[in-house]
């Protein structure tokens, strides 16, 4: 497995290196999977606990990454998530997992205050822990080996810059998972980037579990504020109701619309030009890579990333690349 020296998470160049490294990691694992899994491999058991609601298409791609990696490597990986956003229930599940003493633990950290105690306990119990998706800023302080994901704030900034470049003046950021610090950071990064470009933005909270209501609220926000000319949603569960909401509006009004994260309907919308772009954190890798990393760590104690962030994004899916990504997405791996 390729070793990668310590890098700063803020440098795009280093990020690219990390991603290359990650790709090599996959290759390496693909090669090893040619061989029969050893007995030691079969005994490796990795628990994955995320905050992603089971019904969220984004997280089923992560779960597919976990499953594929486990199959490729011949290890056992169990994917767990509460049915709704609930850091306390996550914390409770991790507590149970510590009792089972797995070979490794993969967690997302959407609420550092709520989860830090239990993650420290896992580390203290001698379980190697890798964090994914949310929690880049706190991972190292909790004793987590490495974080695999994207910096939410930076990704929000990147989205804001693209939006400003596309001519947005007054943008709406739609948050479908109130309480998730990562999503709050995306909105903040987005707003800060727009503000630096001299534009304005505001936030609208909607309910993930209630798409019809979300659609009405988004449409209502645009009717109430005629100056709004752009919108960013923070995930497919926000983007899909938003697409519906835009159809309800006066067709003469052109809204620049982009989202975080992919889903089949998001990709179709990008391909058809109804959306400008989709910020992709390539979450399949957030499921796949930690299983590879932990398996190798258990076997060799070798670990890339130097305790920092292995960046899986942000990548941008635009009208040009959408069609190819749709193929991959249909297989649940993008």
């Amino acid at each position, binding site marked *: 497995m390729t070793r990668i020296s310590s890098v700063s998470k803020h440098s795009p160049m280093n990020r690219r290196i990390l991603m290359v490294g990650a790709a090599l990691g996959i290759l390496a694992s693909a090669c090893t999977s040619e061989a029969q899994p050893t007995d030691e491999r079969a005994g490796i058991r990795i628990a994955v606990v995320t905050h992603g609601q089971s019904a969220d298409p984004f997280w089923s791609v992560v779960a597919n990454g976990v499953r594929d990696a486990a199959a490729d490597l011949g290890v056992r990986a169990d994917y767990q998530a509460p049915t709704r956003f609930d850091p306390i229930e996550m914390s409770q*599940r991790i507590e*149970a997992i510590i009792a089972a003493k797995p070979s490794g633990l993969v967690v997302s950290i959407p609420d550092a205050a709520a989860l830090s105690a239990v993650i420290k306990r896992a580390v203290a119990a001698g379980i190697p822990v890798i964090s994914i998706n949310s929690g880049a800023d706190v991972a190292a302080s909790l004793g987590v080996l490495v974080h695999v994901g994207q910096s939410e704030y930076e990704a929000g900034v990147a989205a804001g810059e693209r939006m400003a470049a596309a001519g947005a003046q007054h943008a709406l950021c739609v948050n479908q998972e109130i309480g998730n610090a990562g999503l709050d950071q995306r909105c903040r990064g987005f707003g800060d980037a727009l503000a630096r470009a001299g534009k304005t933005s505001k936030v609208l909270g909607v309910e993930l579990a209630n798409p019809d209501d979300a659609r009405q609220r988004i449409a209502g926000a645009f009717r109430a504020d005629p100056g709004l000319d752009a919108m960013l949603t923070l995930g497919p569960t926000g983007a899909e109701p938003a697409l519906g909401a835009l159809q309800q509006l006066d067709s003469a009004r052109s809204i620049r619309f982009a989202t975080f994260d992919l889903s089949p309907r998001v990709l179709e919308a990008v391909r058809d030009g109804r959306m400008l772009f989709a910020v992709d954190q390539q979450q399949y890798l957030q499921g796949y890579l930690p299983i590879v990393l932990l398996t190798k760590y258990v076997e060799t104690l070798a670990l890339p990333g130097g305790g920092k962030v292995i960046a899986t994004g942000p990548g941008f899916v635009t009208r040009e690349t959408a069609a190819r990504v749709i193929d991959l997405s249909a297989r649940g791996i993008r």
Partner: protein
Amino acid sequence: MAFAEAVGPRRFLTELPALGGALIIWSLFAILAGPAFMGAQGAAAYLNAAAPLGIIAVVVSLLMIGGEFDLSVGSTIGLCGMALMLLVGQAGWPFWAALPVIFALAGAVGFINGWLVVKTGLPSFLVTLAMLFVGRGLTIAGTRRLAGRTQLGGLGVRDGSLAHTLFGSDLPGGLHVTTAWWIGLVIIAGWCLQRSRFGNWVFAVGGHADAARNAGVPVARVKITLFMATAMAAALVALLQAVRYDGADALRGEAMEFRAIVAVVIGGTLLTGGYGTVLGAALGALIFGMVQQGIVLTGTDADWFQVLLGVLLLVAVLANHSLRKRLLGTA
């Protein structure tokens, strides 16, 4: 216990079907999940998961025996947790000064629930459903306006301080101090129900409000008191969680209302009111914790948690239905 007193030695079987249920669930996961579930660490994991729900369920069982529902209890947890974080974390109040405010806030929510139910005669199901939306909406909108976020960390209760010892510490064996609060509440609420005048009134109000009124029971006061106690239990859970998890988010306690009702019904309390036990509700919460954590330990997809829970609820409802028929002599 009204019915059980007639049953005598067979008391536990007839009165606490939840005890049998808990043993079955424990055995099931002992087989499926093995030593990790049976060991002390596993036990701590499911007891800790059951405790916050247990605190709510114990008080909700009194409310349901009294013939009412409270769907707003989950949103009250969110409201009180956020109020605590805003007062202490944002406004800089001392922790101990904020406590009475939190409980007064909960008391007010409970009073409004109870008063509306008593005055309008509308089903509490609807009144408290409305309160759920009001409470949750206020929590999200209020904190976003006041703090610009929906997740507030940094309560700043230091390890070893009195507040931390009372609300956020661990007991021997990895048990959260929350479990001690739970057990304490089971004893207090159980005593109140069985051995106080108020408890007799609760049974009567839930069993037949008109008969209770004819006998001189202050029905409105009993119901309002029960709603206030339920909201106070929510405030206690909000407090325990805010200290332990060093913060709160606006969604805390979501779905707690339904989980509490499920635990209470699994515990053998009739949905129609007038009959039930506090211990049963506590066992219902324990079953809930064992199922949630047991499924994690078997490595099964967590979505099966809901399936198993649904089946358990159905079994409990059917069992309660036949219990009611037997009690009323119509079986």
